[in-house]
């Protein structure tokens, strides 16, 4: 296998790299860029731990090859944290203890933010439905639903 050149933007920074075609985006972010906030849970697209944003859409980084991200704009939990975009959501997660081990949390935050961008006033059922591809073994989900619901409420009150 010969490496392929890719050029992309990750959290607003230009990145150029030589990668093997078989390398998936999650491993690229973790192993090449040391952005270890993107977690690997199942490596077959079921658990949601590796959720990142690619060109504005949420994607499972374990199901996308790094070469497919060539020319794209990737946002990971590190970037969304530094930009402050999910600061209120993180604050709600903290207050509601919506994380225990924290391994699902980066993916959960990114999926939740995706919902809140599409729907400013989601019902609890809609929140549960939107997060139903993100596995959390610790919390039982209720605290996460509460935190997303309260963030939506706060954002509406500020809108």
């Amino acid at each position, binding site marked *: 296998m010969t490496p392929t050149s890719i050029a992309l933007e990750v959290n607003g920074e230009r990145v150029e790299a030589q990668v*093997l075609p*078989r*390398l998936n985006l999650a491993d690229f972010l*973790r192993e090449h860029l*040391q*952005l*270890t*906030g*993107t*977690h*690997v*849970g*199942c*490596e*077959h697209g*079921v*658990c949601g*731990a590796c959720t990142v944003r690619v060109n504005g859409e949420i994607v499972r980084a374990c199901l996308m090859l790094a070469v497919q991200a060539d020319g794209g704009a990737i946002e*990971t*939990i*590190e970037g969304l*944290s530094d930009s402050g975009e999910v600061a209120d959501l*993180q604050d709600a*997660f*903290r*207050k*509601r*203890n919506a*994380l*225990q*081990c*924290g*391994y*699902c*949390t*980066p993916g959960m*935050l990114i999926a939740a933010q995706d919902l809140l961008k599409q729907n400013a006033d989601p019902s*609890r059922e809609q*929140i*549960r*439905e939107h*997060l*139903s*591809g*993100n*596995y*959390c*073994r*610790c*919390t*039982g*989900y*209720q*605290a*996460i*639903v509460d935190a997303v619901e309260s963030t939506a409420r706060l954002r509406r009150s500020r809108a």
Partner: protein
Amino acid sequence: MTAASDKPETLSVLDRPNSYIGKTVPRPNLDRLMQGRGQYVSDIELPRMAHVVFLRSPHAHARIVKIDAAAAKAMPGVITVATGQELAAVITPWVGVLSHMKGLKSAPQYAIAIDRVCWQGEAVAAVVATSRALAEDATESIVVEYEELEAVTDMRTALDPPTPVIHAALGDNLAFERTHNAGAVDQGFADADEVVEAEFVFGRHTGVTLEPRAVVADWNAAEARLTIYQGSQAPHMVQNIAALHLGLEERQVRVVCKDVGGSFGIKVHIYADEMATYALSKLLRRPVKFVADRVESFNTDIHARDHRCKGKIGVKRDGTIVAFEIDDLTGIGPYSMYPRTSAIEANQVVNLVGGPYLTKNYRARARVVFQNKNVMCQYRAVGHPIACSVTEGLVDLAAMKIGMDPVEIRRRNLIADDAYPCVSPSGLRFEKLSHHASLNKLLSMMDYDRLRVEQAGLRKQNIHRGVGIASFIEVTNPSAAFYGVGGAKISSQDGVAVRLDAQGAVICQTSITEQGQGSESLTAQIVGSVLGVPMSRVRVILGDTDNTPYGGGTWASRGAGIGGEAALQATKILRRNILDVASAILQSTPAELDIADGIVVNSNDGAPRIELKELARIVYFRPDTLPPGIQPELMATKHYVPREYPFAFTNGVQASWLEVDTETGFVKLLKHWVVEDCGTIINPQLVDEQIRGGVVQGLGAALFEKCIYDERGQLTNANMADYLVPMSGEMPDIDIGHVVSPTTESELGAKGAGEAGTAGAAAAVANAVNDALSPFGVTITEIPLTPQVILTALGGF
């Protein structure tokens, strides 16, 4: 909250102004995890680190005829390929037995199989390469010749003479058997107006931690020290075992546990592949990393709950339960797990059946058999869900038989709240439980009578909803009775060291560990409250055998009750020492002084006298200004272990409200309630979230989770698409209430809460499903309650 017993006045150390005890405060240091800046073992990279991948057996039982690794060794990036024989020269085998589990036997288990594989997924070779991908490539080039042997897969026939014996040297496939006979069981059944029997079947399931098991082992030959980075719940246990089998002293092994991506008992054991990784690091004199992939997790993380339990209950027409009898059978795989053994779950089932109830007539047999499937061992709420499902299932069947409401039969048989201390039929000692107060609270939370009216109304519309109730007891705060007495080097005590730093902040080192439960938070809350400093001034260090006192860790619902008490006692000493110094500086007496918000104040009027920051400056930098003869000790260490009671039992009750679609067999969970009594509550939110998470794990077992093996011992659903776990869409909201009966054995009064949710959830759901299906005359005593199981029972599948 209802106070089931009054707290004695001596608990004032917790009841100080600005106390954090009993208050919901956010856990410290969550930003690290929320920003993706934690450090899980899978994130760790060290210089010269190599990666190991294991070639695993495709057969459940086979002789290894030949391993040809020549081609693999020549592959790019490959450093070495090791077989079981080669590793056995570096690391010795082990046998998972404990002396207090009388008769328990197992066979020697090696880090990598030698000659024979005993389950599909057992490692037969290790490939170490410069990257995981290259190691995986090379693994595919190893040629192993197997001679397949007959696999023992059905626990029901494992003991029959025609069935092959898995370990010939053991004589048979019986790993352990326990019988128990208390009271007058035969007389009880003879006196009963009705006797009901049923067989309860439990699906084998597993923990599915989101972060798979992972370890980085780093042998530094020049220091002759092994550093193990591992997401373990019991670092000192790992240290002891690694040293023992590598021929090292414990001081030569350091175990570091940073962030852990879920544990639930999965990460409290010693796995063969982890042992192999330690050995490979020693062999290769460089860091070696192992991260299980999801298929490996399903095939090698311990499984649990593969039980078939026959149960029998005798009841009088007035609802009095007169006897319980069980015959439990469980298959644990080919080896008893090390070092906690695989006899504990069956043993707990015998201990716990009938536990909430008055009858003293109880007979039990439990048999634990070997089979050629993955190993089974302790997973969250060990044995409790089985004992609870059997007991509560039988109680509901008895109620149905005599036409009594399920609540009423429980009221008539639960041990009275003023009957403590007392002893259960299996010999367990209860200090103080609150079954009736808990049940009353639950009924008012769920509005039981209204639900019954709603249920009756909906039945007329052919909508089948059910209510299920399950009372339970939970083992928490285990003393040495759990493992220590059986010879395992697993500490039941925990230690905490607290010190004032040079700026008046507090550094606290504890031997309990954090996997998300809130160990760090509860420790900081206790230290801050007892000392009189803000939590933000307390830094908690855990998960490092070089930098914490010796102790057990976090498992068996012990962190708060045992580690919390050690923190309390250590902080009391530090506080006394600080006040001694302060009185010398201020020419006062300790009795006249207090500490509040990081400042030494007058105890009578709260007037500030000296900040801890200033006191620390004097002690550390200007001790020459202190009066002669004063040697301040601004660090204190205390250890704690319960001695009076072997276990601090807790109790609670759960209820499920659900709807069964009798056309499709689907169950929709509508609501779940829990009332739990874990004694003193340090942080209500953390306790509630432990319970919610535990309930959902139990709901997974009730409805979805099952490791499906075929008759040849092949695990057929070893991936997350086919093995179903609870996701947010199917889970209900869960309401939680508390009754508070502190243990008087410790000053803190806290018992454990980590497993209560899992203990009773499946029983409540199963009872609710049977309640919903009662118009059809159908009773199901098998979980998971999949649509297929429900439709089959209804005769429609």
